[in-house]
Each structure stands twice: as structure tokens, then as C-alpha cells.
């Protein structure tokens, strides 16, 4: 663009190459809409798992923004636009709601620095990271500190004791439980963990589901969190921030894979809705797998990308070493995304495979 003093009039006109105008959907607005869509699910998590969720989010956002600013400074790039696009905030929130609400502060710090500095900025920053930074940070911690990363709080109505804000802060920052309270009193296995553990002990689904841990189709509390994330996802679809391709293909592939095995043997395979409404399936389908940078770009590619994640989630949950699988499945498919894009280029107008015009 250049400003131009139109010959002699003192009138200054602007010279821009066409098109002269654009749809008001900038990257920062996209990220803000994503944050807005996360609100109901996050509120539900706070309702069921207490203040720790909020503390994690605040901590992760602060670390992510600071790390982003630090890298931009080292790279001698303008800091304000990088932070102003809100992408680091989205990464931080997604990371914070994926980790346990009692995670020690230094692990959150480590995970966020890994995600922002190594996974995102070392590849060139927003637009260039091949892996989803939030999920890479999560998996980095999961393989490094498996115990801390799988110790979850019990949902509010099942816990003997709910942590207050001060107790959460002390637990996260000083590692101190409230006096007279043991871990057993506040923690519980996640539904996916419990299901895996009990199935490995040889129990049938019908017996496992007698436990008070279960709600209508997923874990108690968990299924409601999934519902509220689903609401946020529908909001994103309605606002055209995301398209249906990835979430629908991922959830239907997961449901179909789970459904086939459930029909074959309902005593050792939970029914499909359990898979959809436990763990991070809904959150992952609408908020994580849809990260545009690390996903496929072509529509056909997105369908394949989403469906593959859905199937990988089922495979890893059922036969893999970890109870939940969304992070692993997303990262695995991130690797495949450029290749899928390469083989799913759209048919150009006027082109046919045999060279004859239709």
C-alpha cells in the first residue's frame, strides 16, 4: 500500500491492489471467539473440580505470554502483534484444562515453556508449527511425570473434601495438602482410567458401571463437562470459526469404531457414548484437532484427518498404554497432515482425471 498525493489537488488517495476490502475475520478475532467458546466448559470444570482449574489457567496464560514475548525479543521481532493475536492464550487455556487441577506449578511452567518455545516458536511461530503446541506440552509432561499427570481430583459430589481457593493455591505452589486430608480423600481415577483398570482385572462392564463414579453414559461430572464443551463447539460452528469436517469425522469415526466392538462384545467394550463423553473426545474434536495450523487444509484431507484421529483414539484407549489418547492421536495425525494435504488437492475447475471435459 502506498499513500499518494493525486496530482496537484492536495488530495491524498490510497493505492492498494484489489480486492479493496475483506471480511472482518482476523486471526485475533478468531482466537477470541475460541476463548469465548471455551467458557462454558471451563466453568463446568471449575464447578466439578474446584479452583485448581482456574489457578492452572491463570498460571499457564501468564507463562505462555511471557515465553512468547521473550522469544520474540530474542528473535528481534515485534512483541505486541505476537501477543495480540491471542494464540498463546488459546494454547495456554487448552493446556491448562487438559492437565490435572492439582498439578505442581513448576510442571505447568515446564509444559508451557516447552509448548511455546520449542514446539511453536522454534518452528517459526504461529502458522509454522507442525504440532499442536498445547498437546505437545501435555504429552511431554505425561511421559515425563506420569503419576502427577494422572492424579485427578474426584468430581465435587464424589469427593470427601473439596479444596478451597487457598488450599488449591497451597497444593499447587507448595505441594502441601490441607492438614488431616489424604490424597485418597480428594482424588479419584478418571472414568477412562477406572474403566481400563477394572477391565484389566477381568470385570465386566455391567459390574464396573455399578460404581458411583458413573453417570448416565460417561463419568459423573465428566459427561457434563463434555456437554458444555459441545455447546462451545456448536458456537464455533455457528460463528464459522471452524467447519464441521474435522469434529464430525473424528467423533463419528470414534463412535463407529467403538460401536462395532461394543456390538461384538458388550461385556468388555463400553458403548460408544461412553467414548464420546469421557476424557477429552469432545474437547479434542472441537477445540484441539481443529487447530488450523497443525491440521489438514483441504476439505477431503480434513475428513481423513478427523476420522483417523477418531480411530486412533479408540485404538489407543482400548489397547494402548495410556487411558486417554486424544493428545497422542492428534500429534500422530499432525505428522501425517502435510502428506494427506499433498494427496487431497482439490480438483481444479475445468480439469478431469482423463483430461476430457465433463
Amino acid at each position, binding site marked *: 500500500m502506498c499513500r499518494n498525493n493525486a496530482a496537484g489537488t492536495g488530495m491524498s488517495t490510497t493505492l492498494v491492489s484489489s480486492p479493496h476490502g475483506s471480511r472482518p475475520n482476523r486471526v485475533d478475532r478468531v482466537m477470541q471467539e475460541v476463548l469465548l467458546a471455551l467458557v462454558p466448559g471451563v466453568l463446568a470444570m471449575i464447578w466439578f473440580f474446584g479452583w485448581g482449574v482456574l489457578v492452572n489457567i491463570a498460571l499457564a496464560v501468564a507463562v505462555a505470554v511471557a515465553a512468547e514475548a521473550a522469544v520474540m525479543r530474542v528473535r528481534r521481532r515485534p512483541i505486541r502483534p505476537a501477543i495480540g493475536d491471542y494464540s498463546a492464550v488459546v494454547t495456554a487455556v487448552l493446556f491448562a484444562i487438559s492437565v490435572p487441577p492439582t498439578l505442581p506449578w513448576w510442571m505447568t511452567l515446564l509444559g508451557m515453556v516447552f509448548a511455546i518455545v520449542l514446539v511453536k516458536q522454534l518452528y517459526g511461530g504461529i502458522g509454522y508449527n507442525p504440532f499442536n503446541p498445547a498437546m505437545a506440552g501435555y504429552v511431554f509432561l505425561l511421559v515425563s511425570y506420569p503419576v502427577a499427570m494422572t492424579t485427578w481430583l474426584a468430581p465435587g459430589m464424589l469427593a470427601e473434601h473439596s479444596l478451597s481457593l487457598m488450599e488449591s493455591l497451597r497444593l499447587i505452589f507448595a505441594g502441601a495438602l490441607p492438614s488431616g486430608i489424604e490424597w485418597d480423600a480428594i482424588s479419584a481415577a478418571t472414568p477412562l482410567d477406572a474403566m481400563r483398570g477394572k477391565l484389566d482385572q477381568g470385570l465386566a462392564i455391567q459390574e464396573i458401571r455399578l460404581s458411583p463414579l458413573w453417570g448416565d453414559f460417561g463419568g459423573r461430572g465428566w459427561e457434563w463437562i463434555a456437554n458444555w464443551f459441545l455447546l462451545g463447539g456448536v458456537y464455533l460452528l455457528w460463528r464459522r470459526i471452524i467447519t464441521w469436517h474435522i469434529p464430525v469425522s473424528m467423533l463419528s469415526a470414534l463412535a463407529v469404531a467403538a460401536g462395532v466392538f461394543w456390538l461384538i462384545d458388550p461385556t468388555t467394550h463400553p458403548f460408544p457414548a461412553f467414548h464420546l463423553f469421557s476424557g477429552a473426545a469432545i474437547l479434542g474434536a472441537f477445540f484441539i484437532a481443529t487447530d488450523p495450523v497443525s491440521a489438514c487444509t483441504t476439505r477431503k484431507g480434513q475428513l481423513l484427518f478427523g476420522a483417523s484421529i477418531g480411530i486412533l483414539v479408540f485404538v489407543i484407549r482400548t489397547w494402548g498404554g495410556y487411558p486417554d489418547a486424544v493428545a497422542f492421536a492428534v500429534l500422530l495425525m499432525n505428522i501425517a497432515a502435510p502428506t494427506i494435504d499433498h494427496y487431497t488437492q482439490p480438483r481444479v475447475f*475445468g480439469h478431469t482425471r482423463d483430461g476430457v471435459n465433463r
Partner: protein
Amino acid sequence: MALLSIFKRHPTFDHGIYPVEHKDLTADKPIRRLPFAPELVIPLAQHRGAPAVPLVKVGQEVVRGEPIARAEGFMSVPMHAPATGVISAIALAPTADGPKTPAIVLKVYHAASQEVLYDLERDLGAMTPEEIVAAVQDAGLVGLGGAAFPSHVKMKPPAGKVIETVVVNGCECEPYLTCDHRIMLEQSEALIRGITLVLKATGAKRAIIGVEDNKLDAVAHLRAVLPKDLPITAEAVETKYPQGAEKMLIKSLLRKEVPIGGLPADIGVAVYNVGTLAQMGDLLPKGRGLIERVVTVSGPAVANPGNFMVPIGTPLRFLLGQVGLAADRVGEVILGGPMMGMAVASLDVPVTKAVSGVVALEREDPDLARRKVYPCIKCGECLKACPISLNPSMLGELALARQYEQMAGEFNLNQCFECGCCAYVCPSNIPLTQYFRIAKSINRDQHK
């Protein structure tokens, strides 16, 4: 029926975008004449092909309608004097494209008449197809939709190709523009005569007028006045940009795709703009030349927007002065529509045969401000928008990496007709269309 019509969509093509139309500013403004500008600047290269050659000398008097430049070969058209006056110069003059080009400057006589004094009555019925083609060239007619392709050339398809269908383009998909809308409403008689001439010259069996469904009044009017014995129909198509691109309109109306690298003639189609055919129907019987055209002058920086019959060569400064340009607020003056039009560097640029609109945007226009460019986040919005299913995201990345050859070879860069949909939807504000223009021009230079 009313309920069913919600589900029944007018035919259309895949992808594309829905920009804000802004057509209400001028859609109901009838075509008006303006006084002559004191000086008209008529570039010799207003069309695709060889520039015209001047027939006049400096100081020579000309009357309105008189030929002042002749066509140079078949791929060229002549020019005619848009007003009565005296030739004051044949010199370089500014154009929208940037470089100055040779132009005939005409000093208009004070109180010159709007009446055309140079006639050559013809009997259309007795003319052979060849005579019609020659007469169209003599009239200096070019595509008035913006392409400025000599009209008579399209009437003679390459050897072995037969034109079966004439598609008449009344889409006018660019925001702000309403000149074609007014032409269909006000000049339908001349339009139908023009279509009949093209049918006769090409030997085509039928003609379809394609109109976007934001102009259903024009469709209804045309259907009412079209004679039943002529093989001409008027069809509504979806209001979607770029419906008016000829490949898109052919797809919408005929469900056929112009083969890659090919022309509409390859599938038996010729496309004409309604403005071109209305002029043809008006000029040919009288044996006149193209000396004026309908121009929509609009935009937020214009006080009295409207549709005007503007003599070719009228400087923008004069034209915008007539409609009340807010000189303190104007940010950008565009020839054509905002999606594909060209921003001008100087208001001395004249209206040429290809100029369908003059749009003045305000400096504070949100579309002009806040163009912060982010890196591509590979959201795929551009893939969803591209009417010919290219991969603008990938092309943009390749342009940044200067892989211009690969853009053309592997990713069909040369099929891009720069409609601007990709840049319009890009959340990162990447000037994709500009990248592609640059890449194409570099490739052209490399292959010289």
C-alpha cells in the same frame, strides 16, 4: 409455493463469497446524462490487442461520432470522437494501469450538442454474418463488463469450433455496480436487438441472459418484453461473487466447465455482457461508433451516487466533481468494482471503454484500515472460497518462498483470474491476489 421457494435455490457454481453488496445506493437511480467535460482524453489502447492508429491531426475539428482512430488489424478496434471539438494534442496521458500511454486529447466546444451528428443508417435484416462482424468492429465495440476484449473477435470462433449458445452476462456481481441492472431495465429493446445480431453472426441456436437473483425485477422485465418467437430466455442465478466471471456463469447456467487452459468457444459458448449488447443493438442500425457508456459512480465518499451515461475520455476529476466527491474524506478511488477494480493514482485518469464503475471509498473505511498481516494459519478459508478450486494457501506459501515456477506448474497459478475471493476471506489479511499477480508477471518475464 412461497414456502417451497426457500428451498429452491437459483442455479450456481461451487465456492465463491458473499460480499456486502452496497447496490442500494444506486440501484433505483435511472441512467442520466452529464454535461461534457471541457477536455476529453481518449487513450489509443483501451482494449485488448493492438492500439488504434490516429486518423486526426492536432488542430483538426471533429464532430461527435466521427472516427478519430482506426483499428490496427483484426485484434483491434477504432475510436470515435465522443464530442464535437478540436484535437488539442496527441500525447502521453495517465491511465489506471500505471504507465502513461498515447492518447488523443479533445478540447470540447463550449455548448457542444449531445446529439450524434455522424450517422450511417444500415438495414440489419439484409446483412450477412460477415458484414455484422465487420460492422461490430467498425463500431469500436469491446467487452464493456471490464475485460475490453474486442467484441467482433468472439463472433468468429477458431476454426473447427461452433458456437451453439450465447450467454448474456447480466450478473454484475461486483459490489456497488448497478449499471448493467439499469441497462436491462431501461435499454431492453436495444439489448434484445444486440442479442439477435450476435445469434445471427455466430449462428448460435439460443441465447440465455443470466442475471443474479438480487435483480429479479430485471429478470421479470426481460421475460415480459422478450418476443416469444426468439430463442432467447432470461434466467436467475444465485447472487454470489464471482457469478459474473464467464466460466462461473457458464457453469451455473449450462452445468458445463470450460476446460483448463481453454476458451468458452471450446464448449460451444460465447459470453457477452449486457452493456456490450445493448450498445451493439443501439449503434449498429445507425452505423455509429461507441462514444459513451453507462458508468455507476458510487461509494461512501460520493454525495450523489448514480448511474450516468459518460462520454469516453471524461477525466475522473470532472466526473467525481459532478457527483460531489468528499475530497477531504476520500481514501481510494477505484475503477470498476472493489473486488477486481484498480485503484487510481491520479484523478486525471479518464473513463475508458472498460470502466463500468467508479467507486470512491472513505479513508476511514474499515476495509482500508487495519490491514495487519499475520502468517498463514492454514485455516483453509481460501480453498473454500476459490471458485476454480485452486489452493491459494499453498500458492501463497510458495510465493513467499519465490517458487514461482512450481506455482504455475504444479498448482495451476495461470488458471487464477484474480477474482480476489481468497484475499477477501483471509483472516491473516495476506494479499494473496497481489502475490499471484506478481508471480504471474515474473513467470511471463522469465519465458520471454
